[in-house]
């Protein structure tokens, strides 16, 4: 780096990682891209007294490597990456890179460090959180909503073919596009510096329809000029959306270089952790080191955050700890175990390869159920509706309701289930709830229709639900911000479990009655008669499994026949995330246990 650039870069990089946590209000909408680890930290922070913590810097940032020699692990991959970037610099054509690896293994860090060393401009894409609107009410401008995410994304890619941001603004006034890149402006930089466009957070639209990706990449291929890097957390689930997105064919078609990072090995981890510990507390606590290592499974970022949290939590104790070591170790253990239980088990199922996806989805649900409206502006009370429709008058919504579904990664089916599950808790008036329920029921009819009739698009049903619900609920429950996960799937599994149970009973009773529904409604509902049915022990067992008369909602007495509750339930509840959204915070609770119902 040039000498002048040194302080500048410091500032820039700071901005780079942490734009969401900076006090700057403008960067607020970026919270979608916030890493869940940071959110995790936020949870911890919010438990503590606030002012102190804000002074403390995130350790991930404080100890981030500044040069390639400081990078830990993945030596070979980093080498490859370096070569690739150098090669890109040497040619004019656009190049695309696909960088994958488990979370916290240093993908972005490596990219940043190398990019800086090679004197490239780093530009990061932040998906706009669906709805960024003009916030000042006094303005006479009608509220302009954001373009679809796809459009914005394309603009991001194309506009950056210009070497400086200011030029793009000539063509497209940034105010018109209410989205932001955390762009690193460097006025001193010469015009011909290559840019490194980093996309960590692929717009949901593209995730949902992977075919759009090709379109976007084709566009970039013809009009881009810089290096485009997709930084993507990897998982080996076939259902993982990213895995589908970057298929082998796609990589081949566009000549995308693919580099896959591994989790950081333990020696590298312990090296970093002990360095940090040494610097912070002047001593290395081996026990803590081990605990942190065990809890973080190769996720360096998580390890540092854990360490930070732990050490911060016990700074007072650390003075005493030499005197009273035993007490401390006890505490350490307790803490560490509780932490390791916090550590989201490497997220397995459906859509959660990015830890914060569920969160954005929950935000979407929250937005529907807790629709925020703009207060009337005195000047322009809209033309009043005819008297027979006057009860439909509502204040204008702050969000475009059909954009809400777009921001969530949930399938439309799951989206509906989520809404359904939480709806009654968000309403206080039964009449409003009736209307909302009616909309839900209508949207459920639409979804099978859309598979049959081509003129009903498949996203129609979640739209009907979200618009209908936000329209019908006018009185907000002010204190209620919990979102529960739907138990739909579990119910379905229970039904099928019970069905197979009944079919087996039918088989065992050896009558010519195979109709399990009739068994359920007639035969087995007379528990007085059940003793008469017991021809065999097996049957007795089966029947006692079914036991309707005990009235235990989805009893756990279905040891072998009932499918285990799907691992889905863990998806959205990986950790108690919390996020402040102006006045609203969604606390993801553990799924309700059935006994509580």
């Amino acid at each position, binding site marked *: 780096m040039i000498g002048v650039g040194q302080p500048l870069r410091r500032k820039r990089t700071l901005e780079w990682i942490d734009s969401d946590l900076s006090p700057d209000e403008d960067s607020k909408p970026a919270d979608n891209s916030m890493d869940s680890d940071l959110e995790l930290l936020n949870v911890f922070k919010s438990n503590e007294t606030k002012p102190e913590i804000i002074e403390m810097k995130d350790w991930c940032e404080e100890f981030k490597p500044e040069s390639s020699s400081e990078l830990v692990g993945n030596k070979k991959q980093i080498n490859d990456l370096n070569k690739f970037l150098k090669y890109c610099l040497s040619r004019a054509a656009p190049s695309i890179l696909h960088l994958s690896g488990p979370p916290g293994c240093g993908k972005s860090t490596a990219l940043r460090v190398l990019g800086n060393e090679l004197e490239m401009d780093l530009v990061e894409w932040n998906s706009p959180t669906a709805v960024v609107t003009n916030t000042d009410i006094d303005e006479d401008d009608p509220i302009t909503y954001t373009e679809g995410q796809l459009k914005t994304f394309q603009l991001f890619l194309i506009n950056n073919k210009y070497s400086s941001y200011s030029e793009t603004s000539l063509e497209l006034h940034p105010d018109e596009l209410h989205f932001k890149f955390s762009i690193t402006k460097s006025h001193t930089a010469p015009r011909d510096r290559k840019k490194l466009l980093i996309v960590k957070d692929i717009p949901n639209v593209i995730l949902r329809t992977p075919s759009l990706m090709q379109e976007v990449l084709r566009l970039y291929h013809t009009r881009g000029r810089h290096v485009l890097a997709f930084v993507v957390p990897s998982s080996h689930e076939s259902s993982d959306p990213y895995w589908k997105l970057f298929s082998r064919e796609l990589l081949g078609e566009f000549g995308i270089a693919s580099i896959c990072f591994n989790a950081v090995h333990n020696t590298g981890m312990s090296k970093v952790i002990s360095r940090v510990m040494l610097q912070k507390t002047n001593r290395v606590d081996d026990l803590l080191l081990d605990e942190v290592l065990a809890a973080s499974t190769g996720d360096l970022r998580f390890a540092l955050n854990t360490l930070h949290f732990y050490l911060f939590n016990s700074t007072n104790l650390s003075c005493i700890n030499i005197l009273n070591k035993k007490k401390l170790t006890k505490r350490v253990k307790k803490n560490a175990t509780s932490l390791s239980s916090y550590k989201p088990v490497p997220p397995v199922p459906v859509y959660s390869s990015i830890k914060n996806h569920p969160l954005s989805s929950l935000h979407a649900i929250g937005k529907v159920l807790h629709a925020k409206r703009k207060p009337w502006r005195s000047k322009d009370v809209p033309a009043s509706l005819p008297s027979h429709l006057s009860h439909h008058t509502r204040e204008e919504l702050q969000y475009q309701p059909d954009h809400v579904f777009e921001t969530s990664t949930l399938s439309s089916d799951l989206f509906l289930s989520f809404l359904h599950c939480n709806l009654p808790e968000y309403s206080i008036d039964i009449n409003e709830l009736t209307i909302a329920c009616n909309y839900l029921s209508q949207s459920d*009819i639409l979804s099978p229709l859309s598979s049959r009739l081509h003129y009903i698009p498949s996203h129609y049903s979640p739209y009907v639900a979200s618009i209908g619900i936000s329209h019908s609920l006018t009185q907000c429950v002010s204190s209620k911000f919990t979102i529960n996960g739907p138990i739909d799937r579990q119910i379905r599994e229970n039904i099928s479990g019970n069905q197979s149970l009944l079919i087996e009973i039918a088989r065992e009773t050896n009558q010519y009655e195979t109709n399990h529904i009739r068994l359920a409604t007639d035969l087995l509902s007379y528990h007085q008669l059940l003793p008469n049915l017991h021809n065999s022990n097996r049957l007795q067992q089966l029947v006692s499994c079914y036991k309707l008369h005990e009235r235990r909602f989805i009893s756990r007495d279905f040891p072998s026949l009932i499918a285990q509750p799907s691992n889905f339930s863990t998806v959205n509840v990986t950790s108690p995330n919390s996020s402040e959204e102006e006045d609203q915070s969604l606390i993801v609770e553990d799924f309700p246990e059935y006994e509580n119902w």
Partner: protein
Amino acid sequence: MSLWVDKYRPTQLHKLDYHHALSSQLKRLVDSGDFPHLLFFGPSGAGKKTRIMCTLREMYGVGVERLRIENINIQTPSNKKIELTTINSNHHIEFNPSDAGIYDRVVVQEVLKNIAQMHTLDTGSQRGFKVVVLNEVDKLTREAQHSLRRTMEKYSSNCRLILCCNSTGKVISPIRSRCLGIRVPAPSHEEISRILHYVCKKEGVVLPTELSGRIAEMSRRNLRRALLMVEACRVQQHPMSPEQSIPLPDWEQYIKQTADLILMEQSPKQLLEVRSRVYELMAHVIPADVIMKYLLEELVKSCDGSMKAEVITAAAEFEHRIHLGSKPIFHIEAFVAKFMSMYKRFLEEGLGNLQDIEMDF
């Protein structure tokens, strides 16, 4: 030890206790040597299945009663394996295609094809065709019904279908027109109590006439249920007394309690409570439309004239939606919510009227 329902099920056409005209018709049909595809329909517990088995027995002799249960594995075009339980005899095969859920179309096609292509080697057997009994045709998806229609035509030379369903309303008309429809009405109260007395006599139990009358009434003219009730009464109290309570099926009691909950309080919180109860019922394989029906019956009891019509209209609409949609709970809940708001309004109006009257005084 088997239940009375099974023990005293008649197996021959001339032993059937009621609908004698129907029995003799079936007899004549069998005697004529061949018969078209049949579609038995009627309320549950009316004796459709019994009549089907009697007809088969008449046709093929005792061989039909030697039943064996088989599991067939069928592979769908999308490589999903489905296991289906069938009940076979040498002469017929019976299965429940709606068990296969959305794959019912494949099941219907495959099973019928297999059977129709298997020619009986035994030339000595009386009939040149096999019989396939399909249960719950009305639960089949539309696609399955259409494919059934084609298969019926294709294999009509060596296989006959006997379809069985509760209502023909949900059977597509091409199928209805290809079958001889046979309606089996529910037995009357008198017929039921006569059969109950007959069974009790055989069992050596004294059944008070009053009790049998009450049971017949409570069974909603469902003979199977009536027999189960009698047996349950007998287990409950050995010498049966005329005024003893008749046990209801437990899920019916549960729905009753649910209806009481709805009438007690109309609030979103109560809706959540109701939801968990509906979920429980559904988890125990009580079909959604049955839940809806019984719930409606309970709720309507506490409505006045004009509101009754409103409630039933709403129920009809949401019941229809259950069949259109994929998530029955949404529609049941929407109905409950609708009822709650209607009922609340009704109560408030009632209260208002009361106050008016008081004011007048």
